[in-house]
């Protein structure tokens, strides 16, 4: 007689929504006529993610922390907060995917990925107004994987979720319609390095299993309390953290980030920058706090060191970039370092305010970076997006509104007061200082100052330089966005301002959510 595992369907509803939508998307791809497939796919994907967002919010009403699915899933405050964040940001990214007004060929994605780039057939397809719809189910699967990732209470589920979120991302980063060689190269690099990193995660899992006889986070915690920490356990922890830091693009495991961010289609880059970061940090927080919270001394020096390396590498190399997508990639590496200062703020036994601060920072960073990449899709030249810095010179005189919105996002990324970025940075730095990590906070402040330089350089370039190519009449054009991108820009810009001016209620929410179960 096999006992059925306990399943709380209500608690699983957000995940079921997203994975259900993804499966329906696959069926639509197989059976729906091609001409009318695009609106159907967009609707299915949006219903799935927004449905997940709504069900997560409903779950928070008379909310009870629980461990369900035979102990594999934890439904607690951080899980729900991060799941809602991922679902919301995922829905916004899907809207960017669905934009059809900007590219003359009406989509950012290649019609047929199997056709070799540059072949006669490929050139023929470049101008065909057919759209690729496979990206929607793929992205929905990735969103589902991320939502599972932050709720996994079991290293095995965490590994499976890691792969469910990664595999679709490898594919969609290779699907750009223009500059296909760069896009394919990005996909290969991301795939090989990603598979390498997940092998490390997996070996860590095996060693932890060997040391404790279980992969449940709660069991690992009690085993490390009872038996002390032997070499196997510490080694396993180190390998697990390496695998996760890779996904979070923390230096020195960041080498894929600039290449993939630059090569992937910009909507996909926005998706990766916003959602993957949230998911990876959600898993890092859960692993370090639930499984290894009592053995804080084992991971604290490691996290401390990579936080510093990440902030310095991101800020310094960001200075030398001439491509905006690459610059934002280095900015994301620096931000990963700032987020790790929040992880340090977890403190011994998690009594610090680091958890709430990190979750809030993830939300603000996700919204801001999504908005910044959305602006990048607007400025175009004959061959897709114009991402070279020189092409942005004097943009304000041509399109004041776009320049103003970009300025807002860049100021938020730099952490200037009255934007969301400032509130987030303030929260994580305070959490780190409360835990006595003031040297780290000092480095973080210096790195912010250095990073502010390259954000402000773009602003100066947009407002105070003569327009690019004006004398030859061949500067980049600023596209008029369709409905989807307009909605994304409106929401992200409003949220960036609102979370900077009146962050109180969301900070409160993050603080109330900041209790792990398990």
């Amino acid at each position, binding site marked *: 007689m096999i006992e059925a595992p306990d399943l709380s369907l209500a608690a699983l509803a957000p995940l079921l929504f997203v994975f259900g939508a993804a499966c329906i998307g696959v069926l639509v791809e197989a059976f729906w006529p091609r001409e009318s497939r695009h609106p159907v796919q967009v609707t299915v994907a949006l219903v799935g993610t927004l449905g997940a967002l709504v069900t997560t919010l409903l779950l928070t009403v008379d909310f009870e922390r629980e461990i369900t699915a035979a102990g594999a899933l934890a439904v607690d405050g951080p899980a729900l907060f991060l799941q809602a964040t991922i679902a919301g940001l995922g829905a916004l990214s899907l809207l960017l995917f669905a934009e059809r007004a900007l590219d003359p060929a009406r989509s950012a994605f290649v019609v047929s990925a199997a056709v070799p780039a540059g072949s006669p057939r490929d050139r023929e397809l470049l101008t065909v107004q057919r759209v690729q719809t496979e990206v929607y189910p793929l992205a929905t699967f990735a969103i589902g994987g991320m939502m599972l990732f932050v709720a996994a209470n079991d290293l095995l589920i965490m590994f499976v979720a890691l792969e469910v979120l990664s595999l679709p991302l490898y*594919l969609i980063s290779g699907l750009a319609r223009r500059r296909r060689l760069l896009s394919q190269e990005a996909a290969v690099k991301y795939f090989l390095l990603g598979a390498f990193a997940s*092998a490390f995660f997996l070996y860590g899992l095996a060693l932890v299993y060997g040391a404790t006889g279980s*992969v449940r986070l709660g069991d690992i915690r009690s085993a490390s309390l009872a038996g002390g920490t032997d070499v196997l356990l510490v080694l396993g922890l180190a390998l697990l953290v390496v695998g996760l830091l890779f996904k979070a693009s923390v230096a020195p495991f960041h080498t894929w980030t600039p290449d993939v961010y630059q090569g992937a289609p910009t909507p996909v880059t926005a998706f990766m920058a916003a959602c993957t970061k949230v998911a990876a940090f959600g898993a890092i927080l859960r692993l370090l706090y639930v499984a290894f919270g009592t053995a804080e001394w084992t991971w604290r020096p490691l996290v401390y060191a990579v936080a510093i390396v990440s902030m310095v590498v991101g800020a310094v190399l960001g200075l030398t970039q001439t491509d905006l997508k690459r610059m934002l990639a280095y900015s994301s590496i620096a931000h990963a370092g700032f987020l790790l200062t929040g992880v340090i703020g977890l403190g011994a036994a998690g009594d610090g305010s680091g958890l709430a601060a990190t979750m809030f920072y993830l939300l603000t960073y996700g919204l801001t970076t999504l908005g910044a990449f959305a602006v990048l899709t607007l400025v175009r030249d004959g061959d897709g997006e114009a991402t070279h810095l020189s092409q942005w010179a004097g943009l304000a005189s041509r399109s004041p509104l776009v320049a103003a919105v970009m300025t807002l996002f860049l100021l938020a990324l730099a952490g200037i007061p009255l934007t969301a970025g400032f509130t987030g940075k303030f929260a994580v730095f305070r959490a780190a200082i409360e835990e006595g990590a003031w040297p780290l906070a000092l480095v973080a402040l210096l790195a912010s100052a250095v990073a502010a330089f390259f954000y402000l350089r773009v602003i100066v370039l947009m407002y105070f330089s003569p327009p690019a190519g004006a004398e030859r009449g061949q500067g980049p054009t600023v596209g008029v966005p369709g409905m989807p991108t307009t909605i994304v820009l409106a929401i992200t810009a409003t949220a960036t301002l609102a979370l900077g001016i009146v962050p109180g209620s969301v900070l409160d929410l993050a603080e109330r959510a900041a209790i792990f179960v398990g």
Partner: protein
Amino acid sequence: MTLTYYLVLAAILFTIGAVGVLVRRNAIVVFMCVELMLNSVNLTLVTFARATGTIDGQIMAFFVMVVAAAEVVVGLAIIMSIYRTRRSASVDDANLLKY
């Protein structure tokens, strides 16, 4: 006691795989090295299942196999697409994105 041999073998295989990823040029070979790493993990898992007297490790090995198979599908598709364009699967030739 003899279980140690299996663990050491798995560690050696994992190391060979990791070194292979770092030094080999052909994307397919790099990918095979990743698969070697995953399989050495399987060996470790099964050995630990025996050592700790729990069955979880064996079940996890099956999960790893399924995930590895899915990874092969995605990986070979990506490598194929870039090979068709460039007529080369060398990771050194993919050098448009840098600095």
